[in-house]
């Protein structure tokens, strides 16, 4: 199947001059299946949208300027059908058969964070890893946090097509961009480094099944965009509630130097494999 979404094609044709000068891009992403190695050596089946046919537990970070379009080719290297949708953008939802390809175009006329994901099977495949961030309105000081949680036994069950009782879900691994503390601090797209007075943007999405509550030490940040609560825009906060499949764009303008933690204040999620503090925890470094 090779399908270009009609509404976006129409928008493109009507705005051809804007497109030519606005930096539209073509990008290919691959649906891959593999194994995620946890910090403690535990292994869980995993799937992700990657930039090549080589599996990684990190989903591709899609970024665009406001108004720009990404013409996206989605290639399914897996042996089963998958879905593709972008939460908050209309007219995208589609399916891609095993070893097939679809084409979609994604854009936003305003700043925002959008979760692209596999919508089929009650979003079980998204839980398994097929969920990433489409960030619109990025600047040169932008960082991305894709929050996920996993229960080993549930990953095994979803991978083999088994049923999952989400009412008993108790995740034991918590990651940001596929890594947990302390390794996440090695991820330069996640680990915020800056200077006093910088305008730093953080695109943060919860693509897991659990809810989280992300607390910043040292600073209050302004909410520039919220996927589900437009009334949150403009709030200055140090702690941000994260329902599943939601996200924020946050603006940080540091006013003091130092290294400060950011972590889930549901402190159960600061663990990994039952060990503290190997979960959702990283630091911000302001020089």
């Amino acid at each position, binding site marked *: 199947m090779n399908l270009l979404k009609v509404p976006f094609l129409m928008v493109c044709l009507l705005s051809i001059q804007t497109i030519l000068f606005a930096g539209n891009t073509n990008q290919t992403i691959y649906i891959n299946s593999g194994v995620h190695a946890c910090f403690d050596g535990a292994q869980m089946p995993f799937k992700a949208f990657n930039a090549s046919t080589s599996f990684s537990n990190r989903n591709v970070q899609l970024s665009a300027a406001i108004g720009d379009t990404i013409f996206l080719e989605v290639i399914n290297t897996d042996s089963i059908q998958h879905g593709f949708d972008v939460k908050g953008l209309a007219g995208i939802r589609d399916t891609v058969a095993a070893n097939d390809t679809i084409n979609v175009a994604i854009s936003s006329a305003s700043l925002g964070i959008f979760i692209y994901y596999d919508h089929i099977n009650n979003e079980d495949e998204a839980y398994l890893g097929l969920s990433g961030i489409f960030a619109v309105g990025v600047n040169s000081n932008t960082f991305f946090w894709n929050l996920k*949680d996993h229960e080993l036994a549930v990953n095994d069950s979803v991978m083999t097509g088994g049923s999952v009782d*989400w*009412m*008993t*879900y*108790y*995740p034991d691994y918590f990651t940001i961009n596929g890594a947990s*503390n*302390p390794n996440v601090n090695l991820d330069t797209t996640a680990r915020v480094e800056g200077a006093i007075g910088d305008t730093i943007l953080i695109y943060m999405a919860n693509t897991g*099944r*659990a*809810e*989280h*509550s992300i*607390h910043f*030490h*040292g*600073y*209050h940040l302004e909410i520039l965009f919220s996927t589900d609560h437009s*009334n949150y*825009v*403009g*709030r*200055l*906060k*140090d*702690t941000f*509630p*994260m329902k599943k499949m939601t996200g924020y764009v946050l603006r940080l303008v540091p006013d*003091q*130097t*130092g*290294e*400060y*933690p950011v972590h889930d*204040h*549901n*402190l*159960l999620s*600061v*663990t990994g494999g*039952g*060990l*503290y*503090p*190997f979960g959702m925890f990283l*630091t911000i470094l302001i020089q």
Partner: protein
Amino acid sequence: MLLFCVGSYHAQTNVFLIGRTLGEKIIANGDTLRVFGFAPNLGSHPPIPGPLIEANQGDSVHIDFWNVSQLHHHTIHLHGLDVNQQNDGVPMLSFDVDHMEHGWYHFKAPHAGTYLYHCHVGSTIHLQAGMYGPIIIRPSDGSNTTWDGGFAFDTETMLFMSEFDTFWHTDSILDHPHDTTAVHDSLEVPRYNPDNFLINGLSDHQLEDSIELNSKTDFVNYFRLVNIGYCSNKVIFPASLGAQIIDSDGRPLPSVEMSDTVEIYPGERYGVLVESSVAILDSIEVYYYDMMTGTVKDTQYVKVDIKVPNNVEEFKMLRDLVLAPNPVTNELKVMFNAIEARAVGYRIISLDGKLMESVQPQRVNQGKNLFTINTSGYAAGTYLISIMDEGQVLSEQFIKSSE
């Protein structure tokens, strides 16, 4: 209803807290749990939550933290106060405090608002164990306003939500080893299955008559909501209270939001104003949600009792209203005390709502005053007289007899 007040001085607030690990806490079923916590002195168990730290915006706050904890390390993280790294209380980025040592934390009180403090050593275990407490930064002048130039309020109530998993309060869990050479003090965390759902450290029948909004009509009541547990909370106010959400995490919201429901996640704080012009006897519902499954684990209730004021002792300027004789035939003497000279009027209505008499405010002297009212033309029955000054009303019933 605030907790424990630590000494506060104009431009400098000094706080003394003791870290303890052999505290005891009686829970709703009567059992005694071992808790960690912050105590104001060696002679008492650490309260859950810990002592209130209170300062005015702009004050210099100095905390002397003495750790008396049987080899456990602790810190104080000043949650939401945006202190510098040295005072942030994260052990591997600043310092921790060993058994029988003192640690000092300093900060200048920033924005007025609601904050909290907690230990950041082995956080998942130490918070559950009880090492947390509230911080209130008041406006620069210390007044009952939400922040400098903010909303004035008459009453203030803190609802500080958390949970206990009683299994976590056993020695095998609490007495974990500390590896002071490691960057991260790693420790095993058991599965969490909370069985006590707390507001200000109390639950179920313990809440009755302990925590409530006991107020009066037309009073502005300010709620400070805090969640330091591992569940998310949904706080639902009675619709008749007209709840307004005004601040979060120590900052005013960009605009006031009218909502009876406040969702509050771990580490968040919210400020809510409620007010009623009529008497209310109702409850605030506090739901505890499992953040992994989204299911409700428990519900707690906080009593709301708003009365129409009719007690002379409750007023500041007009007091000691006495009617004589009562029953009355022809002449009713209305005696009262005014705390200061002011304009006072009165009106009389019958119990079926008929206005019998209304007298515009006239100046009265400080001290005892007397109004004499001719009731000879009143039909026999019961009447209500209200004397009023600016914003205050004192009411009493009297009976007109037929003779």
